[in-house]
């Protein structure tokens, strides 16, 4: 399995415009050889899931900085089922405090990379999970 073919969608759900984190993680994943599609700002959960389906990605990543991660993920979850994307890796990063991690994991998030996470950890995680899934 060629790891260079790993396809990632990086989504920015909601109204928040703080995209520094999303953009640097996109660059890190591109440097790691992934094919990355960045949605740009202010996408609805449906727009993100539609893009993920259309682009046939392996990983759906979300970046959230303004505290609305739980309502976003709640709205996104049924859409993953609707679009038959439940087998894809679903990860989130950003200002996601540890008190919310359990709730998010219960919702089906595969991994959470809060502010301060290293690029290597994100990339290694995706590669290893991709190998398992392949």
């Amino acid at each position, binding site marked *: 399995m060629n790891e260079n073919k790993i396809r990632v969608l990086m989504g920015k759900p909601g*109204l928040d415009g703080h995209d520094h984190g999303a953009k*640097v993680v996109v660059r890190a994943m591109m440097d790691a050889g992934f094919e990355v599609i960045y949605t740009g700002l202010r996408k*609805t959960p449906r727009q993100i899931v539609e893009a993920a389906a259309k682009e046939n990605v392996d990983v759906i990543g979300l970046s959230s900085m303004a505290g609305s991660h739980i309502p976003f993920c709640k709205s996104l979850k049924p859409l993953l089922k609707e679009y038959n994307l439940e087998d894809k890796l679903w990860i989130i990063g950003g200002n996601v405090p540890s008190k919310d991690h359990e709730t998010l994991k219960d919702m089906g998030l595969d991994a959470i990379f809060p502010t*301060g996470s290293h*690029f290597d950890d994100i990339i290694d995680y995706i590669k290893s999970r991709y190998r398992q899934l392949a």
Partner: protein
Amino acid sequence: MSPKEIKPKEIRNESGIEVKELYTEADVEASGGVNMVGLPGEYPFTRGIHREMYRKRPWTMRQYTGFANAKDTNERFHYLIENGQTGLNVAFDLPTQTGLDTDDPLAEGEVGRVGMAVDTLRDFEIAFDGIDLEKITVSLTINGSAAILIAMYLAMAEKRGYDVAKLRGTAQNDILKEFIGRGTWIFPVEPSIKLVGDTIEYCAKHAPKYSPVSVCGYHIRESGATPEQEMAYAFCIAKAYADDMLKRGLHIDEFAGRLSYNFNIFGNLFEQVAKFRAGRGLWAKIIKEDYGAKDPKSMWMRMIAAGGGGGLTIEQPENNIVRGAYYALISALSGAQTMALCCFDEAYTIPSEYAQRISLRTMQMLIEEMGLCETVDPLAGSYYVETMTNKMRQKMEETMAEVEAEGGIIKMVSEGTIQAKVSAQAYGMQKDLQSGAFPKVGVNCYKTDEEEKEVEFHPYDNRDADQQIENLNKVKAERDQAEVDRTLDQVKADAEAGHNVMPAIVAAVKAYATVGEITSKLVEVYGYYQEPIKF
């Protein structure tokens, strides 16, 4: 773990200027001498825009505040004022910032979360209740929907009996930087600049003491710009707004005195001080020589400076109290007019009252205990600081020339090239932080295995949104719908005709038209911005 013990032979600051181990008079001379230094209160204002600076009046303390709804925010305003705060700096929630009403489906989960929710003039009446708008000046951190919120502020003040012609206050209203960082744009680039121009022109005529724009290097720096780029790009943006005014037939002295700036502070202390001193001289020179201003006030680079969000860390959050104190010190040494400090818990949450009070006390200690207000520009004459000031100014001029060579700031923003440039730099900086090449205490050195102390999270209650919708429905039921429809049609008609839309927006907010209704009328004419995605 401590950072690398051996310092490299060559040290450069973040702006790329070499830092030597020793400076003498010869370095000052070699860098251009002292002809741009002068005296405070005199051109080129490198040493400060006023002769007496803080000796006459300390900087304004203006902590960024706002959450949930107008009522809760009003209570926090009163708390801060009781604790010695001298200005207000209002945070709005994201629906308000992006021109959506509380009951819009896109606002779900975001109402009142990162700031106060505003739908109509009624919210402004509640938010500023009991606050003396002559004593406490108000800064509105609003951009995409700024024209509407400025109109609300003026309408609210007028209703309270204030003379709008004498009213002071500030709106951020710098849309060009929103396309580079922060991202609360609504309309495409050209009509967005036109709207900023409408507010400047309207205020120049009707509210000449009001500062309708605070040009922000701050968020460009947060997005990955170096300190000198922060200033250079902000000046390019301010020039774009000024050029629009000149095209409308205004003279530079009719509006330049009410332009102000918002800058960031984190990183090397001396680079920061030199940055501000250099910036003041350069801006004065641009406005005088390139724009032909005669009024010295037009040449003033008035600024709010401190913040430092990008310098604060989620690791060991109490360390941020100390960082905040250094940032405030830098700001005072740099001659800022206003300060707002990011609070120690702000990397996590909306600041608590406790954290806000610590930030206020930090600034008050500088004023009352440390002698920062006694002497103007105390670092002047330092060989190091004067040399760096010269070099930073030259670097900013080079960067501004590069922007011109690439077709100007509006073109670069529209095409996404400046966004790609700063985000590439942000990536490089992040890699250096992760590798430890760029030391950050508590993050990549001097880490601790102890469990992080819990930060108290600001509670978010969904019921606040329901209450806000209820309030909105009540206002809608009480208002004169025919007047709302008439004024909204006028907004659209004026936008279509290319007229200044501010008079129509003022009439609409007075009729209690909502932020979302007015925004929709403008969208019908201007359309939405399509973000260029470039890496």
